[in-house]
């Protein structure tokens, strides 16, 4: 039973939250320009590291707000909680963000091209 700190409500038991999968999967803004393989990569492939992971949570049984977390998937240590729509500030979080294969993926390039936000 992890103890997760909702940015609004403070620390609550894991049972109040719902997991939201990998974070920072940018949705392509011009998906027709992606090949089927590139689209499938965006849609179906997920990282599954042992170690630092950037992921999404929502406080399903509380304020229902979404937020991001940097968590070590092996130790379950929650290294950082940060707002939805922002990037991590912790060293490990920044590292995991920069190292992620998604940064170089066609889908993410496509998302950057079309929209103004990161």
């Amino acid at each position, binding site marked *: 039973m992890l*103890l997760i700190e909702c940015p609004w409500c403070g620390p609550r038991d894991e049972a109040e939250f719902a997991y*939201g999968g990998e974070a920072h999967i940018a949705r392509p803004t011009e*998906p*027709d320009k992606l090949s089927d393989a590139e689209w499938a990569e965006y849609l179906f492939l997920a990282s599954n590291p042992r170690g630092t992971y950037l992921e999404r949570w929502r406080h*399903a049984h509380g304020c229902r707000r979404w937020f991001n977390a940097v968590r070590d998937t092996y130790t*379950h240590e929650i290294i950082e909680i940060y707002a939805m729509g922002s990037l991590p500030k912790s060293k490990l979080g920044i590292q995991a963000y920069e190292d992620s294969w998604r940064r170089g993926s066609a889908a993410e390039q496509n998302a950057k091209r079309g929209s103004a936000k990161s």
Partner: protein
Amino acid sequence: MSPQSHRVTERGRTDKTRLIPFKFDGRDYVGQAGDTLASALLANGVHLVGRGFKYHRPRGILSAGSEEPNALIQLGQGQRSEPNTRATQIELFEGLVAESQNRWPSLAFDIGEANNLVSRLLPSGFYYKTFMWPASWWEKYEHMIRRAAGLGKAPVGRDPDRYEKHHAHCDVLVVGSGPAGLAAALAAARTGARVILADEQSELGGGLLSNSEATIAGKSTEAWRSDTIAAIEACEAATLLPRTTVTGYYDHNYLTMVERVTDHLANPPAHLPRQRLWKVRAKRVVLATGAIERPLVFRDNDRPGIMLSSAVRTYLQRYGVLSGRRALVFTNNDDAYRTALSLKEAGGVVAAIVDLRIEVSGALLDAARAKGIEVLLGHAVVATKGHKHVRSVSVMALTGAGDGVQGLAREIECDLIAMAGGWNPTVHLLSQSRGKLSWNEDLGAFVPGQSFQAETSAGSCTGALETADCIRQGLKAGMDAARAAGFKGRAPAAPKVEEHSGSGGMRLIWTVPSTRPVGRGGKHFVDFQNDVTAADIRLAAREGYQSVEHLKRYTTTGMGTDQGKTSNVNALAILGDVLSSDIPGVGTTTFRAPFTPSAIGLYAARNVGEFFDPERRTMIDEWHREAGAKFEHVGQWMRAWYYPKPGEAQRQAVDREVKAARDGVGIMDASTLGKIDIQGPDAAEFLNRVYTNAWLKLGIGRCRYGLMLHEDAMVFDDGVTTRLAENHFHMTTTTGGAAGVLDWLEEWRQTEWPEMKVHFTSVTEQWAVVSICGRKSRELLAELCDDIDLSGEAFPFMAMREGTVSGLPARVFRISFTGELSYEINVAARHGLALWRALMAAGEKHAITPYGTEAMHVLRAEKGFIIVGQETDGTVGPDDLGMDWIVSKKKPDFIGRRSLARPDMLKPDRKQLVGLLTDDPNEVLPEGGQIVADLKPAPPMEMLGHITSSYYSPNCGHSIAMALIKGGRARTGEKLFVPLDGKTVSVRVVEPKFFDPEGERANG
């Protein structure tokens, strides 16, 4: 044996003025208030309490604590009967009834002991090598093995007791209340921190309850103990919980504790639960869990009367019981000398102290000799005698290296062996918390290494054996914990402690040699509960099971209900010897919660029967029940399924309802459907992005059916959404999909389109919904509603009007899931029942017919309308359902759009929705039935798809079914087959629309 023949009245904490009668194996005995079952049996001279698991050798009480492997008792009778309870933990109460286990016909004469005679055929893992031939006999073998395996009997019938669960929060949780635990709790509680102190025993004090010779801060041990407890109790934020086992250590300092509330009471008060499960979130944890004494592994070390030395001392000092009249003490360290001295003082005879060590010095040795106790240094017990009770030992000198024996054997009579093999820190919770263990060569034990969570160990569980060290560590740990939790203060000063000590030192001989090789002439037991011997461990290693994980599973050492508390380290060490490896190299297996077994009812607590899952019912439910409706589960909801008239079976009732809903007026409670209020300037655009069809231009007061896809283009929900105003919509979803759709909308708004101005609010329970349908529904509505123009021109199909129905403010939606002229009347939920009653009363002249979910399913199937979750399963896209018409080709973006163009979605042989008709109109196919074109006499056959919905249609006069079949639409007209158990049904593929295919009736 005279009653309580072995009670020493001037000792112990038990109360001789309160005698307690109890029964063991049908015989009556008497014990004293404060006894455990074990101490009471020993007080009566009873040692034989069980039979070993495999060999059925007579077994006696080994220990005085939760580590007990032998004295496993079937406690209580009837539904409360509980197997495998440890006699050492059962608090005696009047009327207690206990039975020994694993013996037939009796404990004294057990036929199972024949296993002992053929024990050479039954080593570890014997069942992997036997019972293999002939293969067809396996079920017979299995039946026999099952009867022979297992310990104790499970009770028949429900657990009648109440259990409770409690959440708790504290700054410091202290586990264990021996000297270290009491000190830690005191230091922490004095700072004002919220402290919970838990101990599995009935009294706080741990080892202080049985080792009371020391002087602490100038007081007796007992005075220090009770003063410290009083000081903790005086702290307002301290909670003391005896009879409470901390049983599991989980992530982020979350721990579970089991509190035994009434197990020790003869007549538990009815309002109290039997036990409580505490779920604690602690900022800091102090583990003061003590240490468990190790048995020595020598030949035939399992006879009744062979006990742990510290247990012998506990029974004497704490319970006032002499475990034997003539004791033989066998040890590898100093502590057993304290036992010898205690026994002597209490009037027992100590025949000798047999010490594996060659050189010993110090106060304890001197005191023993001063009392005239013979001490044999460098000697070992090499054999024991006595079938149901030990009666003598054979003692020899060890060789210099300690790996063999020499000289002459000497027989010494005794009725008790107190063995002391050293101490294993109780590191189970630490290990569960992912803390690391490190091997201490001097102690021959695993001690706490690196902590993983916010926790510290203190006292004997760190390897400290002196009371002074335990208290000092406890004070520091408690203080550090309180400070880390944000409290200030200074720890009390560490008290001066005076107690006997020895020279220290231990001689670790993991397998005590005998006159014959290990495995010959007798058994060196390692795991008493699972009957695992040193020979078994050697065999496992020889057979290649050399990793500790393999050793455990192949020999089953450590796999009993005691989780190897008295056997794990001995087993590892023996494996290490065999492999010539050091113990850290051998490694350890994982400790798992619970620390001691607990009742399943505890984890269920209240959540059984009516509390297993909330049962949700609509506001109109009372009417349905009064009408004799049958109900079905739709998620957590109980919905009216059908309304049988007297004498009607389900089929007749449903047929009648389905016909009436078209021919006359049907009425249905649709309140459970999900409803979401959507408001904001970007509401229409948002709908445009989550549905496949177009929404921007939907008129005010108009309704539209929408299909929702996931990003992979698979259908995940549908419903009708109505525009109430320019920026205000009312969305409906399936009953089961309501919560999921709301979550979906929020996810996209918060994570993908945060700039969009739209709010979503659930109103599922705000509105009761009564749906009326059928030719006469307009007429009926008109009788109760005079402020809405109900004519077809003024109130067309797929529109909404506001007004009053039966005097109640209402929104009336003209939408149809049945394909008939239909109105869904929404009123505030508090008016739902009143609305229903009013419609029923006014509808009586129209023979109004309530219909349930079954009839609803048939009615929509007659029209070929899909149900998400029935015709779809997450792999079905819109075109598969024949619903390409609802997918906009113009919208630039909606969820799932890109995936519709994936090659996999465009394959011609995708499963597509079709209708099926049977040759025999009365034959109703089973849902889930597989469909084949190429029929063979027996499987395997190539399956083309399956039946998703299937009913008898009274409006069509024949059965109807829908199915998903590969390339289904191209197969229209084809004959296919549904192979079933015992017969094959032929079917013809048709379009999935059976009644009123042009859809004229809803538009009426």
